[in-house]
């Protein structure tokens, strides 16, 4: 039975039906002797819900509906994901009411839930309420032969934290994606030391999956598609043969490979962000927008949002992006070329690496 099937039934392939059959076979190859490979498993990532309180028990309906839909769809998966990671930014302005509201919606998930912290959960009370609810913001665990690390990558220096007249001003500054008064994210020395120590006991052959809210690679500083000490974290991960970094925050599909580290991003359930200008290969002559245009189809509120089912096989991850009313996308690890590739939309030529951030 193929693991990627929704609603398992005899011979009906659904989500996998847009994948070439051969690739499914590779992805779900059992051991040569016919027994199930223990290294294969499936988990889900739901992320960037940005639930926003309007007043009292009233929340922005659009963001609520996005998270509820992802939860309901995730519950329809069969076999069930081994766990669901929530990728951070549960609330919009870090309020206790937002985080509690999110916890309530996530409680409908019928798989174990792992939590990651985002900047929107943090910069009001410096994560106090979030940590009371969900525990440590960085931790690791082992699952079916894979070592999994969850980092808190959205820290900034003390000086920035203390420069605001009140916590809400700080939160609102950080909540603006392109606010020039923001500050670059980092994992920080303390966590890097912890990570080194955590990985000491792990064999270099053990596949790693590292979750971070912000990209553990430098894409665009202006929007914090960025972690300031990304190279230092990458250095810690470098000795391991198979490393997969999965990050949130960007609300769009991104993938990359640096050395042994494959990078994948996840979608938001709330809204899509545009691609940053550092991604452009040609100069853009589109006039600078002064009018809001938050998605291609403004009528359909879920356009450009989604969540993801992720297959882990032989230590690498295949991202299945579940995109409402849009063609689902699959960014799978290609063993031959040794990098993640979009199964359907991969540019035939290698896209040249960016030369500036």
């Amino acid at each position: 039975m193929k693991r990627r099937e929704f609603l398992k039934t005899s011979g009906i392939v659904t989500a996998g039906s847009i994948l070439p059959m051969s690739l499914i076979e590779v992805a779900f190859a059992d051991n040569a002797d016919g027994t199930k490979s223990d290294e294969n498993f499936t988990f889900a990532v739901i992320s960037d819900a940005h639930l926003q309180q309007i007043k009292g028990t009233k929340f922005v309906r659009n963001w609520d509906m996005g998270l509820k839909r992802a939860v309901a769809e995730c519950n329809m998966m069969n076999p069930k994901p081994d766990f669901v990671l929530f990728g951070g930014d549960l609330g919009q302005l870090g309020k206790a009411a937002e985080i509690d509201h999110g916890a309530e919606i996530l409680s409908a998930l019928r798989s174990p839930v792992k939590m990651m912290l985002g900047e929107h959960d943090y910069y009001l009370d410096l994560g106090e309420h979030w940590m009371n609810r969900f525990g440590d913001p960085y931790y690791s665990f082992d699952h079916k032969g894979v070592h999994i690390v969850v980092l808190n990558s959205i820290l900034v220096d003390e000086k920035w934290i203390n420069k605001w007249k009140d916590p809400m001003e700080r939160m609102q500054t950080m909540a603006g994606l392109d606010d020039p008064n923001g500050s670059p994210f980092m994992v920080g020395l303390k966590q890097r030391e912890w990570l080194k120590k955590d990985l000491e006991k792990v064999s270099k052959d053990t596949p790693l999956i590292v979750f971070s809210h912000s990209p553990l690679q430098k894409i665009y500083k202006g929007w914090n598609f960025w972690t300031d000490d990304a190279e230092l974290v990458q250095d810690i991960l470098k000795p391991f043969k198979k490393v997969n970094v999965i990050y949130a925050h960007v609300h769009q599909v991104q993938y990359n490979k640096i050395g042994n580290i494959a990078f994948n991003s996840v979608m938001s359930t709330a809204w899509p962000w545009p691609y940053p200008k550092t991604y452009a290969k040609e100069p853009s002559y589109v006039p600078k927008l002064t009018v809001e245009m938050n998605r291609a189809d403004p009528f359909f509120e879920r356009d450009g949002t989604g969540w993801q089912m992720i297959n882990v096989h032989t230590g690498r991850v295949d991202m299945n992006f579940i995109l409402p009313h849009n063609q689902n996308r699959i960014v799978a690890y290609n063993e031959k070329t040794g990098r993640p590739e979009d199964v359907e939309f991969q540019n035939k030529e290698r896209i040249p690496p960016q030369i500036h951030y």
Partner: protein
Amino acid sequence: MKKIKLTYLLIGLSVGLYAAPLGLPEVPVPADNPQTEAKIKLGDMLYHDPRFSRDGKVSCATCHAREKAFTDHLPVSKGFTDEKGTRVGTRNAPTVINAAYYTSQFWDGRVPSLEEQAKFPPINPVEGGLHSWDELVGMLKKDDFYKKEFEKVFGIKSSEITIDHFIKAIASFERTLISGNSKFDRFMYGGDKNALNEQEKRGLEVFLGQGRCVSCHTISQTHAIFTDNQFHNLGVGFKALQGKSEKVASEYLHKLAMHKKKLKKSAGKEIANHAADDLVLADKKFSELGRLAITHEVDDMGAFKTPTLRNIAKTAPYMHDGSLKTLIEVVEWYNFGGKLNPDDPDTPFLDGGIRPLNLSGQQVLDLVAFMKALTSPEFENVKEPK
């Protein structure tokens, strides 16, 4: 006045074969089933002939009756009757008027054409209840009148009649059930600025603007078919699945696989969506899976096809399950973002286009008045169901 109506009536009946009425595009006709006068006449007869059912009393016209604007005015349709009683389906009979413009048929779009649509009701276990298409074709082959007609229309011997000839004739007839030329059409496409009254014009504004109706019930510069031919979850029927979507979907797919096997064994081959046709009309909870029952995609959970709005005032009750009795109720449903009571829960699968509209009472009434201006002259006299 009477004379004018009669003229419209004649126009309404004579189109289809050659020209589309005001407000509608040319009728798409498949290359392998061209329209001919004789075929249309044969299709008309087959459409109205109740013999192709287990009790000899159910024809296409039973649920799609001309005098009821080609519906049955029931919440959900009724099939044949035997000692166990009358079979009852799970879905509201959509009107056949202008069905020729849909790019898929049935509420869940499980077949691509009028031809394929006509195939299933005679043998569906809660509709016609015949055991097989062979049984139906056998009846045709034994009937002297039909033998002659099929020979005349298709140029075949009676021994060569198949179910495909039967469905082609019916589909050809249905392609003549084309009706435009409503007050809206005369206003929008006929250059008559007085065809709509002030309230109806205000209703059109709501339809195009704050009501956001036109996003799915489409209107173009030259014509209006009032459907995007897509599938949307409006929250209708949600209660039947609330909290058990996953269980029902799994059970459905399991039963579907078994039923497919059974049908394949008895027919010798697999007919696309035959098994789905049986299951969704027999079981309310399976019906509510909507388009998912066909595509098996979670994205299609509880999604149903956008129906045309033409002659909508004459085709109550509304929605795929006939659960809304009046147009006012329908507009209220949309106004509250997919429910009649604002405190009811939303289905998590609700279409992203459905959200509260904040229409005023006056706007609701205006919108209903506009929808009543979508009635074609030839159906103006259809009595609205009580």
